[in-house]
């Protein structure tokens, strides 16, 4: 998934001379939190990105607040508040890269530039949306976590066992604990997630989720002698 898949294309940009009070009004009216600031240039060249402001910068102007910018009034141009130079993204950047830049620089948004032209804006909320989509959480599924050795082919082997049961995998996410293991969070389109977990355990996989029914040392049977429940053969 790339920045171009998640960015907002209709960007409201403003000029550096726009009075701060106009920006305040625009933020409230349009429910926008970040404004790229563009300086027009001569003739054929696209407008130049000269800065960015966030709602927090703008809201504090004129407020009786210790962090309010000193000697700035709502009548001043936005150029007095804007941040520059601006960190930007490219439409072809992978979203995980963009998320990392946002996080490491503690910023909420980046203008997306293509050949010097502003083509969109991408925000932390877009990153969350992307994560939600990548997780497959909108699809009906059973969620299982499987811990495997961190070595080539481990995921392939896991998926081969799942494929043998003709179960479709909606999504795979990866989390890492210690360097030797990888935990895959899978969403699988089957009602019998417990059956799949049992099957994988019988194949020697470590399946931390869903928890085995034998909670607190209870017998795994559902209260009567266990049937051939742990039979590892595929059911269909």
């Amino acid at each position, binding site marked *: 998934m790339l920045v171009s898949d998640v960015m907002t294309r209709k960007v409201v940009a403003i000029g550096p001379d726009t009075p701060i009070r106009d920006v305040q009004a625009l933020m409230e009216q349009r429910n926008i939190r970040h404004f790229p600031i563009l300086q027009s240039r001569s003739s054929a060249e696209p407008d130049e990105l000269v800065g960015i402001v966030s709602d927090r910068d703008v809201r504090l102007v004129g407020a009786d607040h210790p962090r309010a910018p000193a000697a700035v009034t709502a009548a001043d141009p936005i150029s007095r508040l804007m941040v520059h130079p601006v960190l930007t993204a490219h439409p072809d950047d992978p979203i995980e890269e963009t998320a990392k830049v946002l996080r490491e620089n503690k910023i909420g948004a980046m203008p997306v530039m293509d050949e010097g032209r502003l083509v969109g804006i991408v925000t932390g909320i877009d990153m969350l949306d992307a994560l939600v989509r990548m997780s497959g*959480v909108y699809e*009906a*599924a*059973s*969620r299982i976590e499987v811990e495997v050795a961190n070595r080539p082919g481990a995921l392939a082997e896991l998926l081969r066992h799942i494929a043998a*049961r*003709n*179960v*479709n995998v909606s999504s795979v996410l990866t989390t890492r604990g210690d360097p030797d293991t990888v935990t895959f969070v899978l*969403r699988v*389109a*089957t*009602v*019998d*997630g*417990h*059956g799949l977990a049992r099957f994988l355990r019988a194949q020697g996989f470590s399946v931390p989720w*869903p*928890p085995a*029914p034998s*909670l*607190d040392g*209870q*017998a795994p049977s*559902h*209260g*009567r002698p266990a*049937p051939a*429940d742990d039979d590892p053969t*595929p*059911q*269909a």
Partner: protein
Amino acid sequence: MSTEGCKFVYDPDLAGFELAPDHPFKPLRIELTRSLLSEVGLLSEADIVRPAPLDEDDILMVHDRRFVDAVKSVSVAGKAANDATLAAFGLGTSDNPLFDDMHDKIARVCAATVTAVELVADGRALRTANLAGGLHHALRDRASGFCIYNDLAIAIRRAVDHYGLRVAYLDLDAHHGDGVQWLFYDEPDVLTVSLHESGRYLFPGTGHTYETGKDAGRGTAVNVPLEPFTEDGSFLECFDMVVPRAIERFAPDLIVLQAGADMHRFDPLADLWLSLDGMGKAYRRVVDLAESFTGGRLVVTGGGGYDPYQTVPRAWARLWAEVTGQLLPDDLPTAWRERWQQRLGVTLPAVSGEDPTGWSPAPRRAAITSRNRSVAERLLANLEKIWRLPATVRGRSYQA
């Protein structure tokens, strides 16, 4: 009360097929239930209604044409599974395998549920049952969780559009009733209430308390996710805290109950620990709610239930007994047992009830009960806030 005013929608075709030989969803359990009811004298020929034919247009009121066409295209023998285009429709997997005449067979299930609703909507019956119905996971354009078409949604659609009824849909299956919920999520005239094992542990993963409906339907979806190993007492406590209030507030004309039987302790696919007695008490409550709020009008269906021979027929026999105000005898008929034992090669119980004396108590019972109670309390507090909003602002979602 006798069975007067109660109808059992049935046709042997509804029970005479399998999705796949080893598939956990066993339509045959319906015939075990029907024959049991007949042989204990709770169901006569006069109570049984054959399903009326269903127009494909009724299916298309709920499902996408492309999806229905895909189901029809694979309803011929020998069609290869693992077709990539089928996977997008949720078809050809171990959960939803291809089987002969699948379109016709599942359309008949839908027809039976529509018939059950029409009998009540027309005033030809007060309470009806279609135990073959209850395919609550099927989505607009996708088969899911053993469900190809959503008979419940098709029948509710008909009740709303054709009869102008407000419908309260109540789902007691161990799995969240996601298909029905999403299909009516933004509609003000259909309330969906689902009690289920929490999606953290169980398919389909949804059914969180914060799923409350959207737009004009805000406040018309109610979800009570329960802890694994929830037993009768805690289940009924949560039911009593949430369900009567939701139904009273919604003021339905008709209650549709999905009575999946997989919340039973012996069900192999879920982890709720109800007994037949607890399930029977829940059914009784639903019948009473219909008495109080819909003039008695009630349609019940089956659903999940994967201990298909020992547990499900006894659970649904109780359901029919409660619906019709009859008493299920303690002893099950020997002839019934012997016939089915021979045919299925399994041992069937001799009595209609259970003796829980030897059952181990649920692990962490107190913690489970307390957690479920607090989920229900917070859910209700949130819903009451939404319900108090004027209809004009209720549809606007909260700003983060």
